[in-house]
């Protein structure tokens, strides 16, 4: 178990190392910090002095080390577009994205798991296959298309829900939450649904496949032979083992949700990290892009690590030194 965790930890460090090099190259190769600070009319002497001050003449390794050191202290420099520290810009936007992703995760697991279980237990029933066909439709719905259709129906046609923004927010410390106000909740409904729909389909299919696998195993057949009621077998015996992979799935889901939040945020002009990322890509705001790369890498590595550890904790079979890595396409 410890070997496994150490292995995954090593992999995580490797990922962050590679991404930090990319982020560093990006921020040192694109744009000219001297010109952006002094303007175009500065004398060559001033430029040289500032370049010296900024450490631009230092050897590569020294500059990389400085970059990493600053990043570890959440100092990513100034955003070119906002003219404010990148860390501040991120801090005010992270809550919006996390709230959106968390609500979408609750929806996708809360709907997807029961649908998958019901479809597996009642396999062969016509409505069970209808439900599975419906998940193919769900998988084929791109996030932004769902968002547009929702806006068309509920904002343009019916006028029930706001089509953009986050509504009013309440501050809890530095965390601005939209979950406590009526307008904040109203604004959250459509982006969260747009984000969740294809994930609901994905979760339902995975849970169904997993449950069907479990229902085929020997101990389930043995339980049937003993004459235990089918419902008890399904929910007492099978469900418990079905839910183990769901842990992996929900971690990966959270990752996907944060990635696709970029798209949902663009459709609904949701003031989160995703929208910030798109804007900085559009305006080549390099400090923001490179900070986004690093933070995203750290986030995904942490999620993967948490999933791996939880998986070993929950599934005793993996504790015996084997490296049973489960990958989900």
């Amino acid at each position: 178990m410890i070997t496994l965790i150490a292995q995954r930890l090593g992999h995580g460090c490797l990922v962050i190392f590679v991404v930090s090099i990319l982020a560093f190259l990006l921020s040192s190769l694109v744009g000219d910090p001297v010109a952006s600070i002094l303007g175009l009319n500065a004398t060559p002497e001033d430029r040289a002095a500032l370049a010296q001050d900024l450490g631009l003449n230092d050897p590569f390794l020294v500059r990389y080390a400085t970059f990493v050191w600053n990043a570890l202290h959440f100092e990513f420099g100034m955003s070119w577009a906002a003219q404010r520290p990148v860390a501040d810009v991120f801090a005010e936007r992270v809550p919006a994205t996390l709230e959106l992703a968390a609500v979408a995760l609750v929806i996708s697991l809360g709907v997807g798991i029961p649908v998958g279980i019901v479809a597996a237990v009642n396999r062969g029933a016509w409505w069970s296959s209808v439900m599975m066909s419906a998940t193919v439709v769900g998988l084929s719905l791109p996030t932004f298309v769902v968002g547009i259709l929702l806006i068309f129906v509920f904002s343009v046609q019916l006028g029930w829900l706001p089509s953009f923004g986050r509504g009013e927010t309440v501050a809890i410390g530095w965390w601005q939450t939209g979950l406590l106000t009526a307008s904040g909740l109203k604004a959250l409904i459509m982006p969260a649904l747009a984000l969740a729909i294809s994930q609901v389909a994905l979760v339902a299919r995975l849970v169904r496949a997993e449950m069907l696998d479990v229902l085929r195993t020997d101990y389930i057949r043995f339980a049937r032979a003993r004459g235990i009621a089918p419902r008890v077998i399904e929910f007492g015996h099978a469900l418990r083992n079905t839910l183990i992979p769901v842990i992996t799935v929900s971690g990966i889901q959270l990752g996907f949700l944060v990635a696709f939040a970029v798209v949902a945020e663009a459709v609904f002009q949701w003031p989160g990290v995703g929208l910030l990322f798109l804007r900085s890509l559009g305006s080549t705001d390099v400090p923001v892009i490179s900070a986004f790369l690093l933070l995203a890498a750290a986030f995904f590595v942490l999620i993967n690590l948490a999933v791996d550890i939880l998986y070993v904790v929950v599934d005793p079979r993996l504790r015996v030194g084997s490296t049973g890595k489960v990958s989900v396409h």
Partner: protein
Amino acid sequence: MTDATRLPPATTRLSVARVWNAPISRSFRRSPAAVGGAIVLILLVGAALLAPWIAITDPYELATLDLLNSRLPPVWVEGGSWPYILGTDNQGADVLSLILYGMRTSLLVGILAVCVSCTLGTVLGLISGYLGGLVGVIIMRAADIQFTFPAILLALLIGGLSQALLPAHLQAELAIPILVGALGLSHWPHFARLVRGAVLVEKTKDYVDAARLTGRGRWSIMFRHILPNVTNAIIVLATLDIAFAVMGEATLSFLGFGLPPTEPSLGSLIRTGYNYLFSGEWWLVIFPALTLVLLVMAVNLVGDWLRDALNPQLD
């Protein structure tokens, strides 16, 4: 598929009856979802291919457009008129024609992107699986690192950065190659992992030893002996991947990092049309969006059936 007893008698002649009675055709006919998906797919692809002949306006020839016909709603809505079945845009271009041309571009980008990811992933997967060693480890490590990030985010990053770094006049010109590269590069690890896994299984089989004993070279064994035996799995993944690539094209274009508005694709049409959603011209965005969903769904249905029919060990 290597089960010799189930193979039909060896004959090279293809006859209608033989194709009709083949196990794969039977399984196809038994699956209503696959038949439905295939019919929709053939209709859509056919219409896209025939666009220059059946479209009533050509989006690349602005001179043919008539501003008098601009902003017409679909025919069944009051104010709509034939032959503009799905209405027209603000320049008088027929929406149905735009969709047909857009689908061509979307399919072209999608298929090229899958070619890139499939070729790259298959070659690297073969090398990593068959040759192994340090090169193999490095390849799979690279794939693992890339797997940490959701593909769509990578595609967005590659596409967005390359557009940002290019001079403005080249952006529109190189939009398609950039998009193909971004989508292709973001998905090769899926193929590499699949192929590597399959190769590790095939490698232990007798025919590989036999080929080695007859003095075949490593590359010949990899590409002429092992590759043909793992194609089923690759075909399934490639089919499903077209759905991802078409969706990815649309997503990137919608976000403004794909094709420019002058190059109609399903994504760029939705992006342009989205601006008119609030001014009441809903047909400019809803119809391209529905076409995209239909196209992706048809590919997914066919791919799903293929997965069950060819039954490769997809992870």
